[in-house]
C-alpha cells in the first residue's frame, strides 16, 4: 500500500483512535469547524472520558455523535443515494418542489438521515416500490429525480467494480476506510479496528484486501477467512 494508506492503517489501529484533519475530511467529508465543531463539543462534554484526543478528533466519539444525532455528511448521504456530494446539494436545493418541508441541512456540512427515506416516499414512482438491490434503487432514484425535479444526478460508482471492468458498474454505498474510494456492497470486506459493534462497520475493498491480506489479516471481521477473494487475487495479479 502507498504511504498515505499505510499511515491511515496506523491511525485506525491506534488506541484511542485520534484522527487528523485530513482523515476527517477525506473519509467522513467533514471539517471540524464552525457549527459542526461547536455542536460536537457540546455533545462531547456530556460523555465521560471524552478528552482522549486533544488537538485531534476521537473517532469513536465522532461516529457516536453522528449516530445519535441521526446525521450524515453530504459525502455519506451521497453514498447512500448513489450520488456525488454536489448532487445531494442540488437535490436538497429543490426540496420545496417535491415538497419536503423539513429542514434537513445543518451548518453546510450535515444532513438529517431521514432525508433518504423522506425523498423516496415523496417521489411518486418510488413510493411503494420494493427494490431488487442498491444499484436498482439508485438507478430508479436518479431517474425519478431527473423526471420530477429536473436535476441531472452525478452517480457515485464503486471504484472496485470499475477496476474489475464490470458492466454495468455497481453503484457505491460506502467508502473504503483506507483508500477513501467509493465502494459497493458487493465488493466490501468488513474490517475490525476495535470500534463498538453498535457503530457502522469499517469496510475496505476486497480488491485492496486481496493485495494486502497479510497486512490486514488481524483486522478481518467475522469468523473465518474472507470468502471469495480468489477473483480479486486474480485481478490483483493481472493489474
Amino acid at each position: 500500500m502507498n504511504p498515505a494508506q499505510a499511515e491511515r492503517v496506523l491511525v485506525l489501529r491506534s488506541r484511542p483512535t485520534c484522527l487528523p484533519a485530513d482523515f476527517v475530511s477525506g473519509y467522513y467529508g467533514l471539517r471540524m469547524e464552525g457549527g459542526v465543531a461547536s455542536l460536537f463539543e457540546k455533545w462531547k462534554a456530556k460523555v465521560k472520558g471524552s478528552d482522549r484526543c486533544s488537538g485531534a478528533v476521537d473517532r469513536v466519539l465522532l461516529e457516536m455523535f453522528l449516530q445519535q444525532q441521526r446525521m450524515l455528511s453530504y459525502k455519506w448521504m451521497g453514498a447512500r443515494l448513489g450520488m456525488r456530494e454536489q448532487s445531494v446539494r442540488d437535490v436538497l436545493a429543490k426540496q420545496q418542489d417535491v415538497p419536503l418541508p423539513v429542514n434537513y441541512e445543518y451548518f453546510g456540512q450535515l444532513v438529517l438521515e431521514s432525508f433518504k427515506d423522506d425523498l423516496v416516499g415523496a417521489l411518486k414512482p418510488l413510493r411503494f416500490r420494493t427494490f431488487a438491490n442498491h444499484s436498482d434503487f439508485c438507478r430508479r432514484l436518479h431517474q425519478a429525480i431527473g423526471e420530477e425535479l429536473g436535476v441531472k444526478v452525478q452517480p457515485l460508482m464503486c471504484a472496485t467494480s470499475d477496476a474489475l471492468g464490470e458492466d454495468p458498474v455497481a453503484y457505491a454505498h460506502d467508502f473504503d476506510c483506507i483508500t477513501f474510494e467509493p465502494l459497493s456492497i458487493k465488493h466490501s470486506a468488513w474490517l475490525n479496528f476495535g470500534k463498538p459493534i453498535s457503530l457502522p462497520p469499517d469496510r475496505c475493498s476486497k480488491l485492496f484486501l486481496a493485495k494486502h491480506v497479510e497486512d490486514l489479516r488481524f483486522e478481518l471481521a467475522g469468523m473465518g477467512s474472507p470468502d471469495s477473494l480468489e477473483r480479486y487475487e486474480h485481478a490483483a495479479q493481472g493489474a
Partner: protein
Amino acid sequence: MLRTWTEGFDALLVQLTPHGGPGGEICFPSGVTVPEMKIAEAEPPHAWFRRCVDGPLAGQIERCAVEPNLAVFATVRWAQGGSLDYANVQVLKTQVALDEYYYDDRPDEGFLLRLDWDYGTLGPMFTHPLPHVHYSSFDAAPRFGVDGLLSDNILIDFFEFVYRHLLHDDWVAWAKRVWHRERGAALGDADPFDAIVSAFRESNIAILRQHEHHVRMLKQCLRREKDRWSELRASTADLELLRYPG
C-alpha cells in the same frame, strides 16, 4: 404507539381478533365472503382485484387497503378456545398505490399471495402442506409451506412473511423496537442489531456466524412478541401429522 409493524396492521389485527368470543367467523373487509373474493383458476391478479373492487367492495378500494400498497381479503373461522378451523387470506402487494394499480391499468405492478388453512384441501398425498401458500392462481402450480415450521401461530406467521419480504423496512423497524426493549438497551455499545442488519444486506455470513448467539436470541424475542398478538392457533397435532418431510 405501534404494537405491530404498522398502524395499518395494528388496525387489521383488531378486526381479526375474536376478543375472547366463542367460535365464529370474521371477514375482512367485513361482509365480503370467500366465494365472492376468491381468485378463480388462472385468473390474473389484476383482473381478480378489479372484480373484487367493482363487485363486493362497490368501488371502495379503501375497504381492503391495509397499507396504501397492500390489500387484504381474509376469512377466519375458529372454535372455542381459539382453535383455528379455517383461514383463507389473500394479500395483494402492488409496486404503486392500490388505486393506481386499479385505475391506471398496471397489471405487471402487483402480485398475490394466498394462505390456505383448510381441512377440505389436503390434496394428493403431501402435495398441499397445511397451511400452504399459493403464489399463482393456476391450480397446477405448487404450494409452499409457511415459515415457522414448528409454530401454531400460522396467521401471524403468514402476515409476518408478507411484511418481512414486501414491506421490509417496516419489519426491520419493528424488530429493532422489540430487540431494543428486550435486550438492546441493556447491551448499549455492544448491541449488534445494526451490524446484523448490515451483514444480512451484504451477505456477510462470517459476521452472522460471529453473532450467532444474538441472532438466535433475536428470533426468540420476535417469536414471543408475535405470539402475544393473537390467541388463534392451529392444531399442533395436525401440523405435525401433515408436515413433510417429517
